[in-house]
Each structure stands twice: as C-alpha cells, then as structure tokens.
C-alpha cells in the first residue's frame, strides 16, 4: 500500500504542478462567475439560474479535466520514458496503475471541491443557500468523473492520448445519452443492429445515473429545485460507479500486465 500511495502522491503532485490544469480551472471559475450576469437577465429566478449554471460548469469542467488528466496518465510515462525507471523498482505493474488512478482521484477531488466552493460562494453572495441536494448532486458528478478517469486510464494503457481522449469523450457522450438510445433500440428495424447496439450499451457506463437533476428516476421527476434523489439512490449510484470503475481497472491491469515498454 505504501508503494501505491507513493505513486498516488507523485501523480497528484504532477497534476497540481501542471499549468494547463489551472487554465481549465480558470475557465470553470469564470463560467461559474458568469452565472451572476446571466442570473441578472432572468426575472426573479436568479438563484435557480446560478444553481443550474454552477452545477453544469462544475460537471463539464470536471469531465474535461478527468479526460485530460486520465489520457495522459500512462502515455506521459511512456513518452518521457519515466516508466523505464519505475517498472524495474520492486513494485507490481498493477500497483503502478492503481497509484496513478488514486492520484488522479485525489486531484479530481481537490479540483471538484474547489469549483464547488466557488459555486457555493457565488450562490451565497447572491442570497442563496447551500442545500443538501446540491451536495448530493456534486458528489454524483464526482463519482461520474471517477468512472470517466478509469475509462481514460484504460484507453491510455494501450493507445495515444489523442485516440484515448476521443474514445473517452465518445463513452461520455453515449453514456449520458443512455436512456435516449435505449428508448430508440426497439424501433430499430435491423435485428443485428439492435443486438449490436444492445451489446454496446451493456459495455458503456450509464452516466445518466449521475446526472439526475431534471430527469426521470424510477418514473419520478427529480430536480435540485424540487424533489431530489434520496441518500439511498446516491449510495446505489456510487456503488454502480465503483463497480464499473473496478471492472475497467481490471481490464486495464490485464492489458498492462503483458505490455512491452519499448
């Protein structure tokens, strides 16, 4: 465990010393701040607009940061040849991968936490309150970015950052559109296409589970402005995210175990 934590701390240190990350964070904060201006344009719905925009900005930029950090995790080590001194150390290859993932999770926790603080700050300045539903929503977004970072790590264990980034964003988009695609499957004429789409949907994570505000959950309309999901739902969604992430990590470990570092 000590070896995994050493790699995790180093991954965290590398991420927080990366200037591109700060640029992304700057845009996220700018967008959250901009919600004040947009809110002023709405009539008596300022808090609602700030909450919606703030959550959307936190979610969007967390995903972008997760993709950016995740796809570079392994590739950078190979490109810079740092893997040539890490792997010969007395560690297992899977320890290296888990260290990288935990480091990324830590980085994402700090960044999502920071964006949430800015969002809550803006909200309070504008006269709103930090409600429990907002904390639930932000936690679900955090679990979503954890899933995305495992997907990015999996792709980056065997392909370039560009392709890994492309595949991960594709998984994110399809994952968010899960209910729409599932609704469309019965209407598909071709049986083969139907089976193929169903198979793909089994592999893609249902990211809509984490993006519940304004969606139907078990036939009930949920929103941060009205009735929101229960803690039990949050727990189940978290368990789903962790199990899915675990499976993807297992696949990444299998790929990584026999990989040649040329």
């Amino acid at each position: 465990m000590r070896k995994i934590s050493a790699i995790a701390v180093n991954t965290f240190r590398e991420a927080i010393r990366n200037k591109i990350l700060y640029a992304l964070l700057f845009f996220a904060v700018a967008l959250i701040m901009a919600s004040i201006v947009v809110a002023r344009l709405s009539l008596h719905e300022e808090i609602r607009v700030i909450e919606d925009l703030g959550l959307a900005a936190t979610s969007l930029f967390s995903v972008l940061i997760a993709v950016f950090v995740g796809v570079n995790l392994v590739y950078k080590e190979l490109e810079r040849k740092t893997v040539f001194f890490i792997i010969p150390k007395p560690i297992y290859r899977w320890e290296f991968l888990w260290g990288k993932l935990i480091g990324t999770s830590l980085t994402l926790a700090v960044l999502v936490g920071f964006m949430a603080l800015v969002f809550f700050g803006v909200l309070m300045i504008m006269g709103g309150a930090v409600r429990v539903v907002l904390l639930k929503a932000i936690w679900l977004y955090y679990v979503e970015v954890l899933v995305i970072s495992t997907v990015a790590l999996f792709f980056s264990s065997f392909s370039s950052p560009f392709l890994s980034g492309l595949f991960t964003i594709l998984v994110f988009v399809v994952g968010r559109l899960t209910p729409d695609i599932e609704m469309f499957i019965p209407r598909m004429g071709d049986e083969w296409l139907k089976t193929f789409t169903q198979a793909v949907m089994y592999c893609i994570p249902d990211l809509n589970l984490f993006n519940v505000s304004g969606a139907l959950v078990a036939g009930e309309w949920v929103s941060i402005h009205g009735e929101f999901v229960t803690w039990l739902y949050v727990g189940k969604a978290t368990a789903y995210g962790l199990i899915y992430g675990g499976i993807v990590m297992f696949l990444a470990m299998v790929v990584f175990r026999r990989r040649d570092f040329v």
Partner: protein
Amino acid sequence: MISVTPAQKSEKEGSENIINVNNLHKTFVTGFLPYGRVSRVLWKTWPRGAKVLSNRVEAVKGLSFSVRRGEIFGLLGPNGAGKTTTLKIMMGLIFQDKGEIQLFGHKPGSLQAKKRTGFLPENPYFYDYLRAEEFLSLVAALTGIPRRERKKRIHEMLKRVGLEEAVDRPLRKYSKGMLQRIGLAQALLCDPLLVVLDEPLSGLDPVGRKEIRDIIRGLKKEGKTVLFSSHILSDVEMLCDRVAIMSKGSLRHIGSLDELLKDDSGTMEMVLNGKKEVLDELLEKWEGSGERIGEKARFITESAEEKDRLLKKALEKGLSLESLAPRRSSLEEIFMSKTGTIDEKRSGESQSKKKDEKEE
C-alpha cells in the same frame, strides 16, 4: 548501514552466476498487428498476410551468456545490436518470445529479482518537476526503504554522486551529466547487489565520465556485480573484467578482456632511434610495414625470424633499439572485426570499386 537479509547472505555464499541468459529471442512486431500473440499466430499460419499487416524486427536472436558474482561485465555492440532490448528484458520492461533469463535464480520482473537490482536506463529522464530530494524520496518509498532511514540515505547518496549543491534545484534544470548522476543515485539508493547500467557513459564530458567510472569501480570494491552496455570502447577497456560483444542480435564473442586483447600471432612492434637518413633508408628497404614518428621509426614484424632480421640490420647500421613489444590489437580493432563492421566496410568498398570499374 544496511542489514543483510538471510536470503542475501545465502546468495553471497551461493551460486557463482548472478545472471543467466539462455537462448534468448525477441522479435518486435510493428504496424497494424502490434500484439505479440496474435501476430505470432498470424505469422505462422498466414505469413503473406502478416507481412502486409505488420513488420518484424528480430532484435535478439538466440543470445546466451552469464554474469558472475562481483564482476564488471560489459555488453558491447554497435547501435541496434540488441543490447538495450536484452537489458529491458532483464528488467521486466519487455517480454522475451523464447528462451530464459534468470536474475538471482528468479524470473525478470519478479519482486525477488527487482529487490536486488538497481537499473539506470539509457538517456534517463525523470519527473522534471521534482527536486532531487523529492525524487529520491519517491524512489526510497518504492524500494521499501524505511521512513526513518530515508533522509540519511538520500543525503549520503547525493554526496556520493556529487549532487549536494543541486539538491534544491528541479530536475528540469539539470544538465545531461547531472541527470546521469541522479539516475545512478536512484539505481544505487536501495543498495542493490546487482547494478545494471544502460549506456551510463554516453553524452558525458571527460570529467563526468571519470566520475561515473570511479563510482562503478567503487561498486566492484563493495562486492557488487555490475552489468553495463556501452559502445565507448575506452571506458569498457578501463572498467570491465569480461565483455560480451553483440551484433545484429547475436553474441559474437564473450570472454575476459585479457583473453580478448591477447595476441598470439607473434606480431611485434619495434621502435628504432638514430640518424634520420639511416632510418629513412631502412624504411625504404624494409618489406614489412613501418612508419616514421618524429625522430624515430616504428616497424611491425610478423614473425620471430623477421624480427631478428630487422634487429640485426638496425644494429649493423648503428641504430639503437628504443622498444620491442608484442603488438596488442586495440579493443576497437577487435570490436570491428567481431561485429563484422570491417568485413562489411571492405565488401562495400570492393562493391563500389567494381561499380566504378564497370562504369569506366
């Protein structure tokens, strides 16, 4: 002071060979089919199709050698000879297709082998955002050095490789020589029994090379085994007990440097001193090879009779004998002949000559 585990103690007393390489093969496949197992099956079953989809480069072909405890062993060879591939297989970075490697009786890449081995990769590059101390702390954590010992060990190591002054500088501000030294520090931090160095002396200035050479000699004195690859022959000549010469993935020669450099053909080198015109006259009449070096002349004799004849003539003409010694081939000459570079050069020359003649 590092405590010696019972396993390490039994190793010290135990078998003689630290590394055993037996019939090692590695082929790299590039192109659309980079994955070993799939491409191997395809190359066997449908070579024509495989050729279109991928390229094969045989990096190591049937390599066998062993490294003995406590020796400095040099792996020599031109670029592309397969030295780095061999070392990477030893370090568990890549996997062989066929054959076997054992380090301390364990498979490469196993924790038992890794714990006893320190490795410096070729052209090392480390996390450049870290300072030397941070970097070595990471290495210490990965190699399992207890926290209470870390600080002391890191400072001792930085002193040993001469980086005490640069301890607070981020690694991105390090020069090539400094990176090589921090690379050596990370390889030696866990006090390994075996040190594997890939081109440790390339790209260094003469002072830097001497410093690294001194550290390598120091390792031998401590009883450690050193395996290093290089194409800088003078350094190999100064450091190694035994060398293996590789070319195009195969072993061309293995043995001690003395054996390698020993010349038993009876060729002698004679240096004569005397009047300039007498020396010139002798050089002109002498059927063997010879040359003027300032006020002296150097002659090469191929046999004992030839040597006696030349010496007699020289003494008759009033010349004095400056030196007479058996001629040792330089490591460079041996390297060139063993790796086939001379033959290739000659055949290349003769081919171009033939071409010229044809054109004329």
